[in-house]
């Protein structure tokens, strides 16, 4: 795994366990003289692990991370990502209930009204971001079947495989057990 000239992973889904992630270029850095905050990146992965474990415990398996964490950025603000889930379970609130039963801070919600500002940050963030600095979105498949120009389904999978500001295609990481 190596960053390209844009500081991105070449477009591909890279499957890694959490320990492989910890020892990867994404945490250890690209081995040059440029600054790289290994301690902070490890802290983010530890927090990610707590949430991934909760997702695994409720039977969610396909979990992907992206954002500036998977880019050549010394100190990313957070880890972004998404996971695949069942529509009915999400819509009924059952998924949130099961996850919140496992999380001591009850951070699982995607209700926009629960977002709060954090000083100096452009946008308001969900409770899971404030507690863990990790933001994972559910993706339930798209009944509308709309595809983007790369043939990806619209919304989360497509959005997460492009840079957030300039929409360049990039690789992301699938977390495996």
């Amino acid at each position: 795994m190596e960053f390209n000239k844009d500081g991105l992973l070449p477009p591909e889904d890279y499957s890694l366990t959490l320990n492989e992630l910890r020892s990867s270029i994404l945490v250890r850095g690209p081995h040059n003289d440029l600054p790289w905050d290994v301690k902070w990146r490890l802290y983010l992965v530890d927090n990610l692990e707590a949430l991934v474990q909760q997702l695994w415990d409720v039977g969610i398996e396909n979990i992907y991370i992206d954002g500036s964490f998977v880019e050549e950025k010394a100190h990313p603000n957070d880890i972004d990502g998404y996971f695949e889930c069942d529509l009915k379970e999400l819509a009924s609130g059952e998924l949130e209930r099961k996850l919140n039963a496992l999380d001591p801070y009850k951070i699982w919600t995607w209700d926009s009204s629960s977002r709060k500002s954090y000083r100096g940050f452009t946008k308001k963030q969900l409770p899971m971001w404030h507690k863990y600095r990790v933001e994972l979105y559910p993706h339930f498949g798209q009944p509308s079947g709309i595809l983007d120009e790369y043939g990806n389904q619209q919304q989360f999978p497509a959005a997460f495989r492009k840079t957030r500001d300039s929409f360049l295609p990039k690789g992301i990481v699938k977390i495996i057990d």
Partner: protein
Amino acid sequence: MIKTESAYKKALEKLQEDQDFIQKQRKVLADMDLTKEQVEKALQPAITFHEQLKEEVIYYERIKRGEFEPIINFHNLGKSLIAYRIYLGLSQQELAERLDVSPSQVSRDERNEYYGATLERLQHVMEAMQMIAKTEIQSEKLLLA
């Protein structure tokens, strides 16, 4: 962070696409065996994602107007340097010329939001842009009051 007019325009297009998508999705979900409440619950993640992009767009518009957030203890100083360059309408290349460094150096610094830059380098960038940052020292109690 949106840094260029072309990225801004793409973000505006994306906002419109998202809005259309959410509406279509709402209709598709309503045609399935879901209550109105369940449809809205299923749409929450897409709406939150959409709102966050909207806030990025608003932030870009604000910095283009020259409206900057206060910098607390140099948190986000790096982001403010980028915002000020955008406000001036300077490209990374033009800033690199003013600093007498390579454009890739500026690109890298901005990608890292100036993480790891020395105080002297930050000062140099501010001077190259004739940016003035006034630091007012307060006790935490007073700041939060």
